[in-house]
Structure formats: structure tokens, C-alpha cells
């Protein structure tokens, strides 16, 4: 399949089930809401090394937040519920409770509960107070600045982790510029996050290594400097590859996000240095979710 000079390879992204949750973080200003959101989702690029994957989902206008202040929604994903129930309160405790003027609310209903105030209230050392309004329990924890307000807990969902696209470009600069355009389009899809720096993972990776104990290593088939030494997936005009990894609350969300990214890249076209779009998989035998690029773009 060739679209606007860009080859859409007959490949698919292979993704895995993950457990996810959403938080809504607010603050007196949009700036501080985003600082808290970026901090709480820091060092959350991959479950392999970070214990969870997290990222900013979207900014939320004052009219939609639980307290009428500027907000940001964030998503977290882990391999199992126990992991989520551990990392989420830990991260909120260190990164949101501490962030000036912040408050933290449930971002989804249903599913198994993930603690927010249920765990963090004890910071109040007995001075914390709860309020139950409209059937929902909310905690007020006294802090030096005033009060930290948070919901008792949030819900969770069976999500999908590890959706991805690979952008094969004509130069390093053009490939990165194209990836940035794709990220911008993909970040508009609700229910998804792109957990890597700026949404982009320049290293890529393959599963396993020749070294004992390494779970992931250089994806040599896509490394442009190795094309003379190893079997390569890169045609001669490809000089650089960038990957975008997608985690989402559903198969549909990840699929829509994948399509948004490919559409943005196709709109740039071969003239802007986008040579081909590929996807990472493990032969289809490991992950139950397959995002077939050509079917998504059909």
C-alpha cells in the first residue's frame, strides 16, 4: 500500500493486555496542573524498567474539572491490578500531594478500585477529614500550603499496552520532524497516552538480548548504522527510524490513535522525508492484540 508516496508496510503492531486508570489533576493555574501531571507521569515510559507506563492524556478546561480549576488527565498502565494499586498511590503521594495548589480526582468509574485518598489520607496524621457529597467520598488532608483535596479512589479498566508505529525516514531531522507531527495528531485521541519522551522512542527495542538478564536490546534490524552487519528491514533511502508507542484504555482507542498517526504522516508524504511506516511485533504469538496497519488504513 502506497499513500502519498509513503509505503504502508504489510505489518502489524502486537500489543498486550494491561490494567489502566485515569486521574484528573487540577491546580490554581494550568501551569501548575501540568507540572504536577508531568511529574507524576515522569519515569513511566516502560513497565520493563519503570514498573508502569504513564502519560498526559489531555488538558481539561475549567468547565469540566471536578473543582472548576484548570486540569490535566493522566493515564497509568501496569501489567496487573496489584501493580497499579501500588504505583498510583505512591506516585500521587510524592508528586501530586507535594505539588503546589494541586488536587487529585478519580478519572474513571467502574472496575477494581485504585486508592487515592484511601491511602494518602494518613499523611494527615489524624487531622484529615472526609466529606461525602453526591455519594462520593473526598478527603481533605492539611498541608503547609492549605489543604490537599483528593477523591477516595478511582476506577480501573482493562486496557491495551504496546501499540506502536515505526516511522522510516529519509534523514534524522525529517524523521524526527515527522514523528513530532504524528505525536501531535495522536495526542488528540482520547483514551490514549504515548509514554515515551515527547511521545517518541528513538531507541526502539527488540525483546531479549545476547546478554543474560537483558529483557530488551537494540532492534538491530531497524538500526541504520548496522545495515552492513545484520539482516535489515531498511531500504537504502531510509536513514533514520523513530517509534511511537501507544497505550490505551481499549483496542478501539489504540486503533484510532494508530490511524491518526499514520494519517498525519501520510499527509506529510514522501516529499517531507517519510519513506515508510512499519510496526513492531513478535511474530504474532505473544500479544493478543494485533493492529494491522493496512486494515487500519483501509
Amino acid at each position, binding site marked *: 500500500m502506497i499513500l502519498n508516496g509513503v509505503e504502508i508496510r504489510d505489518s502489524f503492531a502486537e500489543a498486550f493486555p494491561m490494567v489502566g486508570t485515569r486521574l484528573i489533576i487540577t491546580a490554581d493555574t494550568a501551569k501548575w496542573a501540568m507540572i504536577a501531571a508531568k511529574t507524576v507521569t515522569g519515569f513511566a515510559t516502560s513497565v520493563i524498567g519503570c514498573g508502569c507506563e504513564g502519560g498526559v492524556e489531555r488538558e481539561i478546561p475549567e468547565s469540566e474539572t*471536578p*473543582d*472548576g*480549576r484548570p486540569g490535566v488527565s493522566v493515564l497509568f498502565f501496569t501489567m496487573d491490578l496489584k501493580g497499579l494499586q501500588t504505583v498510583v498511590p505512591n506516585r500521587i503521594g510524592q508528586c501530586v500531594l507535594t505539588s503546589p*495548589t494541586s*488536587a487529585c480526582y478519580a478519572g474513571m468509574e467502574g472496575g477494581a478500585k485504585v486508592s487515592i485518598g484511601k491511602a494518602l489520607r494518613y499523611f494527615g496524621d489524624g487531622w484529615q*477529614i*472526609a*466529606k*461525602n*457529597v*453526591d*455519594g*462520593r467520598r*473526598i478527603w*481533605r488532608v492539611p498541608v503547609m500550603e*492549605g*489543604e490537599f*483535596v483528593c477523591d477516595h479512589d478511582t476506577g480501573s479498566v482493562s486496557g491495551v499496552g504496546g501499540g506502536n508505529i515505526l516511522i522510516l525516514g529519509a534523514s534524522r531531522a525529517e524523521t524526527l520532524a515527522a514523528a513530532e507531527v504524528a505525536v501531535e495528531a495522536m495526542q488528540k485521541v482520547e483514551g490514549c497516552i504515548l509514554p515515551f519522551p515527547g511521545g517518541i522512542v528513538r531507541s526502539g527495542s527488540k525483546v531479549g538480548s545476547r546478554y543474560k538478564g537483558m529483557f530488551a536490546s537494540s532492534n538491530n534490524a531497524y538500526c541504520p548504522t548496522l545495515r552492513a552487519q545484520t539482516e535489515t528491514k531498511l531500504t537504502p533511502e531510509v536513514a533514520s527510524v523513530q517509534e511511537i508507542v501507544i497505550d490505551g484504555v481499549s483496542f478501539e482507542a489504540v486503533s484510532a490513535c494508530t490511524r491518526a498517526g499514520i494519517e498525519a504522516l501520510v499527509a506529510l508524504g514522501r516529499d517531507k522525508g517519510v519513506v515508510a511506516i512499519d510496526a513492531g511485533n513478535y511474530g504474532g504469538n505473544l500479544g493478543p492484540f494485533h493492529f494491522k496497519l493496512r486494515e487500519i488504513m483501509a
Partner: protein
Amino acid sequence: MSGFVLTPRRAFETRVDLAGVLPGVDLSGLTVGYGDRGVALAELFEIGGSVGDRLTLKSGSALLDRVGAGLSSGELVVEGDVGDHLGQSAAGGSITVSGSAGAYAAAELSGGRIEIAGDVGERLGAARDGSRRGMSGGVVVVGGSAGPRAAERLRGGVIVVKGDAAEGAATDLIAGTLAVGGALKGKAGRGMKRGTLLLRSADGLAPGFGDALEHDLVMLRVLARRSPDLAAFLGGAFKVRRFAGDLNAGGKGEALVVPAA
């Protein structure tokens, strides 16, 4: 919306117990208490309409007790006054009274909504005699003033009194929210354990409250989002003067003095 319409046949000579006269109930053949005896509802009221999720009571009276008691769904509309125990132990639905209500209105309410345009008697939303906990959920809005000991032992839910609250409001309040738009007549919040009073003035608070000065509380913004009635009371004011109390009962309750809009 279909439903029965009850119109009194004549002035009542004694108190009427309307427990069980609810929306969705077939009222034909129903017997109600009348003084110390039981009489057919049809003997006291002309019954119009048919069974439905709305019940209208025309020409209400202060002699009509337990109106809407135990209501769990549907709409009950009273044109005029009601007696004691309006909506007692109701768990859902809505009750609207265009006049005033007697004692123990919304006592031990656990859900639903009650609006009373006029005044209410003593122990609004309170615990009944011998009971440890008062109203535990739902919303009550009183257009006029409340009698003594409003929200006594309140356990949850929201009560808004637009007028004054007589002596002893929020006595032994356990949790929940009482907003009073008028004056407190004294000894309010005595023995209050937790919960929130929203007031226009600290005058009338029991002596066990300590002044924590002014604060811009994010929590009030959440309350305003989740409760339209409290949003109306707050009128966009989130900077309030906080009094913690009753300090003789743990001090985890609070009285917040909200400037009038």
C-alpha cells in the same frame, strides 16, 4: 405524568397519619390513621386520577402527619402545609411542599430530595426519639426558617435553610452539611463531631468553636460542583472564615462563614 390527586373533602377534626400514601401506590381501599382510629382514605379525601409516579395533595394542612414517609421513588407534591414527620426515613424520590412543615421533617432521611417553601418545626433532619443518627443522605431545602435543633445528630446529606435556624442547630452533628442563610439563634454546633456548617455569621455558634481565620478552600469548589444547592448558597465565594469545632468533641467539624453574594 399520571398519578393520583387527593383533595380533602372537609376540614380535618384531628391529626391524619398519611404513612403509606405514596406515589405508585394504589390508593383505592387504603386505610389511614385518623386520630385514634383508622378510616378509609376515600372518606377523608376525594381521590382523582389513577396510580402513577406522581401524587398531588391539594389543600394541605398542618394536621397531615408522615406525608411521604418512607418514600423511595416518584414525586409527591403538596399544595399547602403538612404536619410532623414529613418524608421521615425516605430513601429516594422527591417531595415538594408549597407551605410549611411541622416537627421532624426529613428525620432520618437517607436519600431523595425534599423542598419546603415555608418554615419547618423543630428537629429538621434529626434523629427520632431513641435513635442515634439523624438524616444520612439526600437533600433538604427550606425556603423559610427552621425550628430548634435542626440537623441534630445529622449523619450525612445536605440541608439548606434559607432563613434562620432556632437554638441548638447542628447539636451533636456527626457528619454532613447544614447551610443556614439567616441567623443562628444560639448554641449551634454544640457537641458537633465532624461535618460542615455553612453560615453567614459566626454569631450563635456554641463556645466550643475556635477561629482558624480565612482560607480559600478547594473543597468548597468541589462542593459547588457536586451540589447545585450548595453552589447557590456559596454564590461563587470560596474564601471563607473557618471555625473548627466543637473542640470539646474532637474538633473535626467546622463552621465556615461565607460572605453573602
